[in-house]
């Protein structure tokens, strides 16, 4: 069943050369990981820079400058309020990252412990959690966002929370299936035989060993959240003006299609870059974390 590709240890001394080089070779980040990380890095850097500096104030309207084509002064042109599109795209990255982080954060913080609990306590409690999860599964994030928008008022926060809650089931499922796998391993049996409490086992063994899967899921859901926020903004349920948001910029640019196409290009490209970055990152991480996928590189 198990294969051993390592050299024999005639002397009882660790055998660094073959194993570690083999490891390092295998662990070399794939091209996807590199591209993904670079794209996300780009978005993150832009977001950080925009916190302290943007070419123009992204919220100040200048009636005289409205709808100017890209130029040296305004690289990406200006919108119908005379605001600098580049500045808005830069500042919009904040919202994008925020939505992603909070939505994914909520899903992780709630979903992962629930999933681990369900995986470790496979009795009634586990069943109950997974049933609840199934119920939540029938409520896609978009539905929640629409209803929450009505209850709490539409806006970035509502969208983030709704998308976060909507992706709890995904994380709970991943965490549970990972936990089930880990709980079957001999090292968990060994830990139990060593009298470790369930909580410690969850913390020391389960969490670290499912973290890879969780991270992959995170990056996937990050992309989903960014797209969903854009979709919500399109419906008018996302980020509210004047806070710049790529989704809303794209939505607003719609009526200028055909005459001021540049208005759609910048935010559209930005969304694509961010989502593509997260997806590639997720794929790259999956290749690294999932040993089954490794041999394939």
């Amino acid at each position, binding site marked *: *069943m*198990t*294969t*051993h*590709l*390592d*050299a*024999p*240890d*005639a*002397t*009882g*001394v*660790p*055998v*660094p050369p073959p*194993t*570690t080089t083999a*490891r390092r070779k295998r662990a070399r980040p794939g091209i996807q990981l590199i591209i993904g990380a670079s794209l996300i890095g780009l978005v993150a850097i832009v977001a950080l820079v925009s916190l302290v500096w943007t070419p123009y104030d992204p919220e100040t309207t200048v009636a005289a400058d409205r709808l100017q084509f890209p130029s040296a002064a305004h690289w990406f042109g200006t919108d119908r309020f005379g605001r600098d599109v580049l500045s808005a795209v830069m500042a919009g990255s904040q919202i994008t990252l925020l939505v992603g982080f909070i939505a994914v954060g909520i899903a992780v913080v709630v979903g992962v412990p629930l999933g681990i609990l369900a995986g470790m306590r496979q009795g009634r409690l586990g069943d109950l959690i997974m049933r609840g999860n199934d119920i939540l599964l029938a409520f896609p994030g978009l539905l929640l966002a629409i209803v929450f928008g009505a209850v709490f008022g539409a806006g970035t926060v509502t969208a983030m929370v709704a998308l976060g809650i909507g992706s709890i089931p995904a994380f709970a499922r991943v965490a549970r299936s990972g936990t089930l796998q880990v709980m079957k*391993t*001999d*090292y968990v*049996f*060994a*830990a*139990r*035989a*060593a*009298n*470790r*409490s369930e909580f*410690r086992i969850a913390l*020391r*063994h389960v969490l*670290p*060993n499912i973290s890879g899967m969780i991270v992959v899921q995170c990056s996937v859901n990050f992309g989903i959240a960014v797209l969903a926020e854009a979709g919500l903004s399109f419906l008018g349920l996302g980020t509210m003006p004047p806070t710049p948001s790529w989704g809303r910029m794209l939505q607003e640019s719609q009526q200028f299609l055909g005459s001021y196409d540049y208005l759609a290009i910048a935010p559209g490209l930005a969304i694509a870059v961010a989502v593509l970055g997260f997806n590639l990152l997720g794929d790259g991480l999956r290749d690294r974390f999932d040993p089954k996928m490794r041999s394939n590189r």
Partner: protein
Amino acid sequence: MTSADFAVDVRGLTVTAGSTTLVDDVTFRIAPGERVGLIGESGSGKSVTSTAIMGLLPDTLSTSGSVSVAGGGDNLLGKSDARLARLRGSAMSMVFQEPMTALNPLMRVGRQVAEIMTIHRTASPAEADRRAVALLDDVGLPNPAETAKAYPHQLSGGQRQRVMLAMALANDPALLVCDEPTTALDVTVQKQVLDLVLRAVTERGTGLLFITHDLAVVASVCERVLVMNAGVVVEEGPIETVFTRPQHPYTRGLLAASDLTATDAGGRLFTIATAAGYDPARLRRDADAETAAVDSPSSTVRTPAEAPAAVVEPSAAPVSEAADAVSTAPPIVSVRGLTKTYVRSRSGLFGRAARVEALRGLDFDIREGERFGIVGESGSGKSTLLRILSGLDQPTSGDVEVVGTSLRGAKERDLGELRRTLQIVFQDPMGSLDPRMSVGDIVAEPLLNPANLRSGVAASPAERRRLVAEMLDHVGLPAASVERFPHEFSGGQRQRISIARALVCRPRVLVADEPVSALDVSVRAQVLNLLADLVDEYGLTLVFVSHDLGVVRHLCDTVAVMRAGEIVETGPTEQLYDAPAHEYTRQLVLATPTLQHTLENA
């Protein structure tokens, strides 16, 4: 096809992955009807060689040299996939190691066998279906017409391997390649499959390339053997010659480490490192003696030592003097009427909850200081029993008392005492170590719960470090290991880490579930030696599970034989091996290939 005087001709086969050479200048030829074995430890390049012959290597590897197969024209290396596909399954066939995964799970096995004929148009579809049933019959599958309609998951491992064989033989290939076809099977099943392979190739005059790491198996099937080490064939010759007069030290090492009946002056098994003191010629003589022993069960097997550097004794010797003392000691483990029934959650949608009676009423005692072996085929309940003994699983009924703790209905908190006195070593050395923890943390983990310590007081970090260092030293790992991670160690070393973790709290009972089954022969001897030493040193009671009779025989003084959740026979090791009382035990002993045995018959 008839004109060829060889089944396969391999010349200067070299396989490289980037700058690494996996197989280096391998040359051999197999005549029609000839049976050639390829042995070597894990990673030596056996599988790469065989897949190269079949033209199934991944594109990432590059090959040079030449491979010709009877009826396959000239050099096959570098030919297109389509070209090679025409030969695969007709001129040459292959049986793989894992019967569980080698068959398409979604296709009825009859169709899978028939397919190989329809692919090569050696039979019309209807004809192929009919012949498939006949082939299944040929390979000894019961009720072949029914079996043809079964899906792989409805067959046992041995049955699936027979299906694979039926498939491989369907088009009467000139060459049959078997890559460890029986490694995943029970000994009794292994014997049947080996017999089948032997019969099939002899009947059809097929050339056989048989890959295995088990020297006894190769001896029982093949006429000639190639010994491979690190991609190079280091020795080649008739079985008889190579196994009794090995020329290469590596071959000698393999032989020495495989021979669990031979010990050196210190009563320890030979390892590759100490193989110099091993005399392979004894195999031949031993085999003769063995035959004698079987003939007259009452006589003990005791062959006088011949080699000057080695005391050759049957394995039970090192512990035999202790055995008498043990039998009077009070039981440390007492099992009465133990049953365990698993209720499997519904398999799939329409499945009903299946009940598996893993244990059906076990009674036995293990006394303090005893070395208690448990053997039995796969699924007989060995691991289940160990899990219950170590308090990781609850008995369904019956009483289990370990070190004075009754496990029946015990809650987690009642098990403190048990956990402190009993520790486990698992089969898979990689799987039992958390890949994300350093070796130091792994070994120290049992120390973190004060309840595990004799003193009952939490150990300080410094104290823990000291205990871990001490323990690592004991199992023969350098102190620097604490900072490294499991994947940086070899299989044998990982098993040492596992043992260190089990012993760091000084338990009284050590439970080992097939601790050497996943290891290469060369490493197996080292770990067994280490276990024997530590058991002596710490005065441990050992409960040792294995499906390998030889290993149990070497290490244990009492053996229980399990089958289908029951113990069919218990007794002192020697007695049980020499005079098996139960039919099943007898089968087991006979089915286990030993070098001595097979060389004798060869």
